[in-house]
C-alpha cells in the first residue's frame, strides 16, 4: 500500500515488518525499548514484540556489536542501533576485526546477517559527536556493506533488503531527513540494494550524492535549471559497493561530475569516486571531478555547522567551476 510517511517512520515500519515475518530478527541498542530510541525509530516495537526481541542493552557499544556477532552465530539476525554517529567508535574493533571478517575467516561457513543502524550527519544543531559522517571509515573495510537512503521509500525498502542480506550492512540513516515525508509503497518490488538511481535527468553535469545530500543536489539542480543548466542528479544509495557503472554511464553523457557529501573531503567517498571515474572516463571528462564536502576539521559547534556543511551555494559554485573548464 502506498502511504506518505516520514523517513523515521518508514524505518520503523520496515523493522516492524521484519520482526513480524522472521522470528530470528532482533532489535538491540541503547534506549530502543520503552523510549523507542532517541529518534523514536523503534517506537512501539518492544511493546508489540516483547523484551526478548527488542532489547535495551547496557551502555556499551562494543558489547552491543560483539553480542550481535554471537547472536548471528546462533542463527539470529540482529539489527543493532548505535545511538549517534559519534558513538560507533567503541564498537569499531568488533565491527572491523570481527563482524566484517567472520565470513571470510570461516571460509564461508558462517554468515553475519547483522545490520548496524547509525543515525548520521549534521544539520540538526546538536552538540559534539552527534553530527558526523563516518561512512568512509567503513567503506574502506572489506566485508562490510555500507548504504544510506535519501528518502522514506528507499529507507523502507533498503532496510528490508539489509536485514535480508547475509552480509553485515552498515546502515547510515540521514537523521536530518528523519521527518521528511515521502510516498512509501510497501508492496512495490524494489531494485537491487546497491544500485544507484537517477533522480533527475540532465545533460550538462552530473551531481552524485547519497543520504542527506541528495535533497540538496535536487535543489541545486532546480536552481541551476533556472539559469538554463541541465544537471543530472544521481542518488548513489550505496557507498560499498559503489555503483560505478551508473556513475560512469551518467558521466559519459554529461562529461562533468561533482560529488557531494557531508563527510570531510579528505579521504572521503568523493576521492574514491573521482579516482575511479577519472580512470573509467578519462577521455570523456571535460573537467576534473570536483568534490563538495566537509572540511578537514572536527565537526564544528552547531552555530558554525551551516558554514561547514555543503549548501546550495557551495554546490552551485562547484557546478560553475566545473562548467568553466
Amino acid at each position, binding site marked *: 500500500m502506498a502511504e506518505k510517511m*516520514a523517513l*523515521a*517512520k518508514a524505518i520503523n515500519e520496515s523493522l516492524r515488518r521484519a520482526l513480524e515475518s522472521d522470528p530470528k530478527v532482533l532489535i538491540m541498542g*541503547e*534506549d530502543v*525499548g*520503552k*523510549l*523507542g530510541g*532517541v*529518534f*523514536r525509530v523503534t*517506537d*512501539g516495537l518492544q511493546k508489540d514484540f516483547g*523484551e526478548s526481541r527488542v532489547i*535495551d*542493552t*547496557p*551502555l*556499551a557499544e*562494543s*558489547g552491543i556489536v560483539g553480542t550481535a556477532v554471537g547472536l548471528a552465530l546462533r542463527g539470529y539476525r540482529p539489527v543493532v542501533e548505535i*545511538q*549517534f554517529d*559519534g*558513538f560507533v*567508535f*567503541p564498537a569499531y574493533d568488533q565491527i572491523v576485526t570481527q563482524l566484517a571478517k567472520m565470513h571470510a575467516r570461516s571460509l564461508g561457513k558462517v554468515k553475519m546477517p547483522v545490520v548496524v543502524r547509525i543515525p548520521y550527519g549534521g544539520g*540538526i*544543531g*546538536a*552538540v*559534539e*559527536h*552527534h553530527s558526523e559522517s563516518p561512512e568512509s571509515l567503513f567503506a574502506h573495510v572489506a566485508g562490510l556493506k555500507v548504504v544510506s537512503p535519501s528518502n522514506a521509500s528507499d529507507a523502507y525498502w533498503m532496510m528490508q533488503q539489509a536485514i535480508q542480506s547475509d552480509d553485515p550492512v552498515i546502515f547510515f540513516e540521514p537523521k536530518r531527513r*528523519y*521527518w521528511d515525508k515521502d510516498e512509501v509503497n510497501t508492496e512495490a518490488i524494489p531494485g537491487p540494494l546497491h544500485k544507484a538511481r537517477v533522480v533527475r535527468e540532465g545533460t550538462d553535469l552530473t551531481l552524485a550524492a547519497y543520504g542527506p545530500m541528495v535533497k540538496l543536489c535536487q535543489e541545486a539542480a532546480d536552481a541551476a535549471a533556472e539559469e538554463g543548466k541541465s544537471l543530472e542528479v544521481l542518488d548513489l544509495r550505496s557507498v560499498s559497493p559503489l555503483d560505478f557503472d551508473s556513475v560512469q554511464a551518467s558521466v559519459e553523457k554529461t562529461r562533468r561530475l561533482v560529488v557531494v557529501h557531508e563527510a570531510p573531503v*579528505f579521504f572521503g567517498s568523493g576521492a574514491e569516486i573521482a579516482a575511479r571515474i577519472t580512470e573509467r572516463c578519462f577521455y570523456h571528462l571535460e573537467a576534473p571531478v570536483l568534490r563538495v564536502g566537509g*572540511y*578537514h*576539521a*572536527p565537526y*564544528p*559547534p*552547531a*552555530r*558554525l555547522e551551516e*558554514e*561547514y556543511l555543503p549548501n546550495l*551555494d*557551495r554546490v552551485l*559554485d562547484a557546478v560553475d567551476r566545473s562548467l568553466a573548464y
Partner: protein
Amino acid sequence: MTVESTAARTPRRSAGSKAGTTGTKRTTRTTAKKDAGAKGTEPQLVQLLTPEGERVKNAEFDKYVAGVTPEELRGLYRDMVLTRRFDAEATSLQRQGELGLWASLLGQEAAQIGSGRALRDDDYVFPTYREHGVAWCRGVDPTNLLGMFRGVNNGGWDPGGNNFHLYTIVIGSQTLHATGYAMGVAKDGADSAVIAYFGDGASSQGDVAESFTFSAVYNAPVVFFCQNNQWAISEPTEKQSRVPIYQRAQGFGFPGVRVDGNDVLGCLAVTRWALERARSGEGPTLVEAFTYRMGAHTTSDDPTRYRGDEERQAWEAKDPILRLRRYLEASHHADEGFFAELETESEALGRRVREAVRAMPDPDHFAIFENVYADGHALVDEERAQFAAYQASFADEGGN
C-alpha cells in the same frame, strides 16, 4: 547527551514500571555482599544526614566532617541553591531557544557539591557533561558551561585554569584520562588527587573497566565518583548491573563504597576519605553516590515514556537541598536573613547568566579552521584559504 526526535510523542504513561529485571539467583561462591536491591534502602549506604535533616553518627566517616563549621555548612547550602538556580535558568534558556540543549543536574546537587568541596585546588577533575555543581566548586564561570549547549564551542573554558577538564560526551572515556593524569601526578611525586565523574550507565563501558585496571595496577591517585542517578536516559540501573555498582571495585582490587548521594555531608566525608587514600599512596577508590535524576535526561528527553511520577515523588522527599535546610534550621546554623539573602543572590545569578548567554556572540566562521592542529597542517591552511576566497566572492557580489 542526546538530541531527540521532535516527532509526535506518545501519551504519558502513569505506571512507573521498569524494563524487566533479570531474575538473578543468589550464588554461594561470591564473597561480595548482596544488597537488598538497587532502589531500596541500602544497608551499606553511608548517610550522615537523613532526609529529615537529622545528623546521624557514623563511626567511620564522621571524622572527615568533624571540623565543618556552621559557615561551611551554609556555604554548602549556598552552593547547592545557586547551582540549582543556575541549572533552572539554563533549562529555561533552552526553552527560550537560547540553548540547543541542556543536561540538568536537578537532584544531584549534594553529590556534586559534597564531592566538589572535598577537593583541593591542585586536585584535578574529569567531569561528564552534567557536573555543573562541580564546575561551580572549581570556580568555572557558569556562563562558560553554556557555550557548548548553545553551540558556540565544544568546551568554553581552560581546563588548566581551574583544574577542571572539559565536559566529555563519549560515555566513560574521561575515566581513562583521569587515570592517566593520576599516573602523571604519581610520577611527579605530587600529593594531588584526581577525581573522575561518571554515571551508572557509563559503568558498563569497557573504558571504565580499563580505567579500573590501569589505576589499580599503577596504584594511581584517582577517585572514581559514580553518580548513580538510577537512569541512563530511559534505562534503569538494572540494565547495567545486577549488583550495586560500588561492588564493582573490589574485583579490581580497590575499595568501593556507596554513599547517600543526596546527603551533602555524606558525600563530602566519603570523598575526603577517598581523596586522602589517593594522596597517601593507597591508590584508587570507587564512590557510588546513590542519587536521582529528578528531571529529564536532557531537554530533548521525555521521561514520561519510561518512568512514572511516583518514583520521582519518592525521591523528592529525599531532596538534597531540603534536608540541609532542615538541618541548618533545626541547628540554628542559619537564620531567615541568610535564606532571604541567598534568594536575592540566586535571582541575581539567574539574571547574570541570562544576560551573559544572550550576549554571547556567535563564533567567527573561521573558527572552523582554528585549533585543528597546534603545529598547523597544510590542508587546513589550503581549505581556510579556499573558504576565505569563497566568502569573499559573496562580498564581491555586493547587493546580490
